[in-house]
């Protein structure tokens, strides 16, 4: 008989309680895998989006809350010698129908980012026209083809093109002429950011040096704005930061509840087994061995719950990836890393939750415990 077997047999003694505890941990880990997995893949999609668009630097407001940049900045940016292109963008999240929620971009028709989209049907929009281009997934979810009309926030738009982009975010997005989106969102003269494409650097200058120099000069020229490398902007834009903190916040609460479940179960179990623990100690088991037994039981609860949780979280993501409301941001594939992390966290949660009950059990005096009825 192995040591672990003793622990397993103790857990099987109260099956219903064990299963309920596993459910608690499982929900916590499922929340972690689904939410944090979602926020990571969301983040990855943003990174891909910036990578494929050719943006080197994003110029945005320094403050987190006031996030708009004056459109006039564009002129001055373009006049800098190292800037090849500086195009304004607006990024917004909108309900296009009660069920379909999508990222909506506003670009000028001649934005350099337009070149990274592959048109599958139709044409590009013209500036200042109520026209919209749809990502292929969004077009399918809405059931719209070029030539058809659609309503965006109460205003009529004509679908003029369907495109394929470099990331899931574009596949589920809509692109409008910048002015139209400014009108829709009451943002006259303001944009979310400027996306800057740099000229090739001088001989012998590394990309990094070129980037550093450009950022420093832009920030010097525009106090109040910051120039972020595209990769940083991708991972730190408000939507990603919001998704990440909501994911972690919710997961931590769910994991905490799961941990309380384990702690409660192990405390009850130690209490019920007072006499048995006294026997183990009387037979020569050290305090540390009693402690180890209880900690292993708690860790098993964590790990097995964690396995259910990983599967549950993965299924949840798969389901989200299929729903029109969320399909635009969720890819359904989760990074394998998150499963490993989920299992690791489940074991740590089990050990932490089991610590106090284990200590209580280990501290029992053999004589008192044996007399316990």
């Amino acid at each position, binding site marked *: *008989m*192995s*040591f672990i*077997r*003793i622990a397993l*047999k*103790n857990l*099987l*003694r109260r099956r219903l309680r064990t299963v309920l505890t596993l459910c608690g941990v499982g929900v916590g880990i499922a929340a972690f895998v689904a939410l944090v997995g979602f926020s990571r893949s969301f983040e990855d999609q943003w990174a891909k989006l910036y990578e494929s668009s050719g943006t080197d630097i994003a110029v945005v407001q320094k403050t987190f809350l006031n996030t708009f940049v004056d459109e006039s900045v564009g002129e001055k940016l373009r006049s800098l010698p190292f800037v090849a292109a500086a195009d304004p963008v607006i990024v917004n999240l909108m309900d296009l129908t009660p069920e379909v929620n999508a990222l909506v971009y506003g670009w000028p028709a001649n934005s350099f980012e337009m070149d990274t989209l592959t048109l599958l049907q139709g044409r590009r929009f013209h500036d200042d026209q109520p026209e919209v281009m749809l990502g292929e997934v969004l077009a399918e979810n809405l059931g719209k083809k070029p030539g058809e009309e659609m309503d965006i926030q109460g205003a009529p738009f004509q679908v003029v093109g369907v495109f394929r982009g470099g990331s899931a975010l574009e596949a589920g997005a809509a692109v409008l002429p910048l002015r139209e989106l400014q009108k829709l969102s009451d943002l006259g003269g303001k944009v979310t950011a400027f996306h800057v494409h740099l000229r090739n650097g001088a001989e012998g200058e590394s990309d990094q040096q070129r980037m550093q120099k450009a950022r420093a000069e832009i920030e010097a020229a525009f106090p109040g704005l910051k120039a972020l490398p595209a990769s940083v902007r991708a991972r730190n834009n408000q939507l990603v930061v919001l998704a990440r903190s909501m994911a972690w916040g919710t997961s931590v609460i769910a994991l905490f509840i799961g941990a309380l479940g384990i702690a409660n179960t192990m405390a009850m179990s130690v209490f019920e087994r007072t*006499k*048995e623990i006294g*026997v*183990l*100690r*009387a*037979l*020569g*088991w*050290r*305090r540390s*061995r009693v402690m180890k037994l209880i900690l292993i039981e708690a860790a098993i609860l964590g790990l097995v719950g964690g396995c259910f949780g990983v599967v549950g979280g993965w299924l949840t993501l798969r389901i989200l990836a299929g729903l029109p409301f969320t399909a635009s941001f969720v890819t359904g594939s989760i990074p394998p890393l998150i499963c490993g992390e989920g299992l690791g966290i489940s074991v740590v949660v089990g050990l932490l939750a089991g610590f106090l009950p284990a200590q209580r059990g280990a501290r029992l*005096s*053999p*004589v008192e415990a*044996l007399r316990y009825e």
Partner: protein
Amino acid sequence: MSDCLLEGKNVTKHYDEGRIQALRGVDLAVNASEFVAITGPSGSGKSTLLQLLGGLDQPTSGEILFRGHSLANSFDLDSYRSRRVGFVFQAFHLLPTLRALENVQIPMFETKLGLREREAKAAELLREVGLEHRLQQYPNQLSAGERQRTAIARSLANDPEILLADEPTGNLDSENSAKIMALLTGIQAKRNMVLVIVTHESAIAQLAQRTIHIRDGRISS
């Protein structure tokens, strides 16, 4: 005194912050391979004395010596309990979730024995107590006599020099009592162990080489 294995010197034990004086100055010496019975009325302190001899607890004052070493200081009580002493209880105290073969292995987790060796040794011990056909039974599938045999096999797991039994036949009928006593005395003789048995049955006390009477926490004869 050279033969003296286990010794108590002016041992007292108080419970409940002195409100209960279970032992009030006990002196005793047990020689190697000796069989001693402790008798006395209920509540006289027999179990308390046996627990102190077995290292389950510390005396309030006085000391217990094993081979001349005090159990009070430096001496590692856990390893004393697991290596030197086997304990048999009136209520058997087997773990309900474990089979007989598994129960016997419990003390072996404090040794370096591997999984196979633990199993082989436990099977051997159960054969020694006549339970070779009951290895895979759970305690609730065993008779009272069989449970006590399993507990005796468990007490021998780490080949102790001392076997302490607290009313080992207290939960058994007379037929099983006799069998268990025959088993214990047989083991004591074969293994050359110290056997200290607490009992209030004079028939059992008579089997011992020496009987110690306790009354009100003192040795009375």
